């Protein structure tokens, strides 16, 4: 996994030396890694594009403090495919195959922050598919949701909904 990411980062750092890079946009991840991308990629990211538009295109270096250098290459890859019109079911299946549930979650939050509708919709479905058969406890941990029921309230609700607890996958801590 780590190797894959670093190889992607290498390929991106090569593009930094591209002489025609005057028009490129620099995206700075939360851990201060710079990713140079074509303006067409930035267009896919509504948050980035509106930042560029607000400054009349004068500012081309955009800090993205909420997004790590681990996630940004995935986002860029998805946007590149999207521009090329090459988002297929096969690509999407392959794209998330290598991501564990925590990574999907972070990418989902990144897509939300950058406001990339297509990626957000796709990852919503991926998460829905992955948590559909998970336990209540798993979902609380996954979304960071506090259990605000009293023990009595929760017990009563669980009793009423006992039929929905069949076929639930056992929690697998390794997945995190």
């Amino acid at each position, binding site marked *: 996994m780590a190797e894959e990411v670093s190889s992607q980062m290498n390929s991106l750092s090569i593009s930094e030396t591209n002489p025609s890079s005057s028009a490129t946009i620099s995206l700075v991840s939360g851990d201060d890694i710079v990713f140079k991308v074509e303006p067409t990629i930035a267009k896919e990211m509504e948050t980035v594009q509106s930042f560029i538009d607000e400054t009349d295109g004068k500012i081309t270096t955009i800090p993205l403090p909420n997004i790590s250098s681990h996630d940004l290459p995935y986002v860029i890859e998805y946007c590149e495919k999207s521009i090329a019109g090459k988002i297929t079911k096969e690509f999407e299946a392959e794209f998330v195959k290598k991501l564990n549930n925590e990574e999907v979650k972070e990418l989902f939050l990144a897509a939300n922050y950058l406001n990339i509708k297509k990626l957000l919709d796709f990852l919503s479905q991926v998460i829905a598919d992955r948590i559909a058969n998970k336990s209540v406890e798993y979902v609380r941990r996954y*979304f960071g949701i506090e259990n605000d029921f009293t023990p009595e309230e929760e017990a009563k609700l669980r009793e009423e909904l006992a039929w929905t607890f069949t076929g639930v996958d056992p929690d697998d801590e390794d997945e995190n």
Partner: protein
Amino acid sequence: MNHPPSKPARRPTNASPSPVTFPSDLIVEVLSLLDVKSVMRMRCVSKFCNSLYTDHIFVKLHFNRSLQEPHLALVTTDYDTFRIVPYSVSNLLENPPITLADDPCYVIDNYFYPLDLVHQVIGSCNGLICLLSYSDIDSFFWLSFWNPSTRAMSKQLGFNFGLLNDPTSFKFSFGYDNSTNSYKVVMLKFHSDKLMIVEAKVFSVADNVWREIQNFPAVPFQMIEFRHQVNNGVYLNGTLNWLAIFDFKVTYVEVVISLDLGTETYKQIHLPPSFDEKPYVDPTISVLMNYLCFSYHFQDTHFVIWKMVEFGVEESWTQFLKISYERLHIHPYSMGPLVPFYLSKNGETLILANILQDQMILYNLRDNRAVRTRITNKISWFSVKSYVKSMASIC
């Protein structure tokens, strides 16, 4: 819908070590994509997740995003038990031999008390099944609404005492008023001594009262032919539709009377032009693939279905099926009305029922082959309603 995650998220928690807290709008996005059973289980996650169950916006969002796989609510009455068992249409189309599981969760009533209580399925809409329960001895009735997917049963609503002295003189229909987002039940009351006067009342779940509306402008078919329960008013996009006879005494014209549940006004729709003879077997209306359909018996040899391509536009009636009785393996004189129930999404299989036979017929349009379903339980096929899974509820 999309806000940056820097927006104040839900309160952080000590119990959960997860460093990331999800904005609630994203949780809603994900939960709206789950199947009904999973959403129901997730109600136990937190008060917020539990509140989505009664949030109309979420229920609608979930419904629109769901696969909307068709199901049938099969009504069985064995001995003293009234049950409604959900069954998936795709499974039915494969036609395996079936004996429905004796699951207590689908038992609507055991008839312990009162002994003369009768239940009827009135209709289905947005995944909810409307039930009428009445006692003709004690002359009362009430309505209840059951969602087979969430297993939630409403309380008894629209209770009425004294009105229902003769249950055969009342017909109920169920639908949804899109303009006020309210479920409505329409009751037509027929007077045996005044054939032309059909009173109409509407029960709106939103205000929980029965209200009189303008009299029904014709005589519904089902009032003349009592066994003809199938025309209990079919629901389509905010309207209820009945096959009726206009000008009963003189010209006897068969029409569709359509009631707009928003404006509560009637509209008359003429039947296809080539339908001009009074057939031996009563015609019926139904909804197939979201089209209003009209079917009848043609010259004792064929079963014909027309569909109204554009609802309310009489010129858009189009004949789309003509099946010979020979192909259906039924003798036209030995049967009651044939009712089309469902047309599969690929348009390949039509599900029909015959009033005099206790089986459903699966008719394959590609190879013109008809087979009978192989369900061993005794099903009241004319009470069967198709529905899609939803979170809809009436509390």
